[in-house]
């Protein structure tokens, strides 16, 4: 009887450990498969969609086709409002509901156009939101 109990215990142990390991692996695989599928999906684009994007990019004189807007640096600038309704960020005046003597934290990002096939560079320079600072 003892022998049988021990054998049963051993079987249960093995099955449990194997089950645990398999579960972990399947979980990981399913995540990476999902990610891969997401990437494949992202890369599939019809010729028509591609043409639309290209012509849209060409239609704007400030955009550059076959280039991508790459963010090379970003951060927050702390500026004090010295005149009500206005603040100056990197030397550029912004208007808004700014209160005198208050400190404002303004997000900024610097973009650069870099060669990249099939992409459109829409931003180049220093921006806060969609406002170009420099």
């Amino acid at each position, binding site marked *: 009887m003892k022998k049988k109990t021990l054998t049963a*215990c051993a079987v249960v142990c093995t099955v449990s450990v194997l089950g645990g390991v398999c579960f972990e692996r399947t979980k990981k695989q399913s995540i990476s498969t999902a990610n891969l599928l997401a*990437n494949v999906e*992202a890369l599939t684009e019809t010729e028509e969609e591609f043409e639309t994007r290209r012509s849209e990019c060409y239609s704007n004189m400030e955009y550059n086709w076959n280039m991508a807007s790459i963010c*090379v640096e*970003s*951060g927050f600038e702390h500026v004090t409002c010295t005149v009500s309704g206005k603040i100056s960020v990197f030397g550029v005046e912004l208007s808004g509901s700014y209160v005198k003597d208050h400190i404002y934290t303004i997000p900024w*990002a610097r973009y650069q156009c870099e060669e990249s096939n099939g992409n459109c560079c829409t931003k180049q320079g220093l921006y806060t939101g969609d406002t170009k600072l420099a």
Partner: protein
Amino acid sequence: MKKSFFNTIVCLTLFLFALTACHTQSSRKTPVIRGYSDEPLINGLGLDMKDVRIIPLETSKESALSHVVDIGFFGDNLLVQDAGHRLLCFDRQGHFLFPVGMRGRGNGEYLRINAFAVNESDTTVTIFDETSGRIITYDAIGELLESVRLDGKLLYMLQRVAPIPNDERGDYLCSGYVHKDYNRIYSLLSIKNSFCQELQTTPMKTRGTAEIIGIHPINQYGGRLSLILPFSNSVFEYLPEEKKIVPRMTVSVGPKTKLLSQKQISRIDNYSIMLKSEFMAQNYFPGFSSLYETNDYIYLDMDGRLYFLIDKNNNTGVAYEGYIGEIHPDANPLISVKLSDGNSFVGMLEPWRIKTLRNQFDAMIDCKELSLFYKAMMALPDSCLEDGNNPCLVFYQL
């Protein structure tokens, strides 16, 4: 007898499952660092700084920098990556030494510098160029050693690169931009096998621009590769043997700050610093933007707004304002940190910024002798701060 046997089996099974779960949990248990939720201190207030040195980078026709993208130590020297796709070598006194390689289509030339990596031996540097698909290695005096050509797709949206410590294959851990639907933020690049393995993705998207998850998202220190993830309050590390990214430590953000759920992150289709700013306004934790490590400290930058300094010796942290609002005589501020080594953080300050700080400080004549940072700043000759000059390096020794 049969019943007790059955009960034993059931209990044993449950116990083993619990044991397996506990094992998984315990292997991922990470220290929790407190201190973030306290009101941030004035930048550098009470920081025990041993030395501050400000070194202007030589400005000449060959060494004039437009905008610094990244810096790195290269043996006894420093490498500065310029936005104009140049990699320049300076010594630690700021003298310009030589450019590393040059732009072009010839052998050993690059079209663009996505990233560079100083290899473990500290005697060679490798440039990664997505446009030409080239990976070019130079020696300690900037002479070409090797040029390898890979499919440019393997280097697509590559941002920063770090060699895997003690790796015979010479693989690299890479961070990438989030660009529209392209979401591979960390990958393992094997040049020998011409292979790039995805390690970590993000469900976020951008609207046309390529956005960074951080200025300096990977840090190599003491044979350990640490990294950050967007909107996360943890510091992660890459385990080369397991090819896995796991949490290293978690910063407790306190009850007032909310963490974004995976569901919320997956709904983001316009990721950028502007969006981070919106989340911050709603009391969400924006994540860390850069990570630097020394013997005793881990510096976690939060886009220049705040930084969280962790003392590795006692696993405690202090949050500081990332800017200089109020000039305090006892403060040794850490500003614009871009690099770290054994016992120093290295910052970079443009001349106009130093001039502004000096003017602010001039108004507080009584306190001039008190802070190492201000002392070093005031000692700089005016000629170093002329408009158009290269930025200055600031070595903060803690």
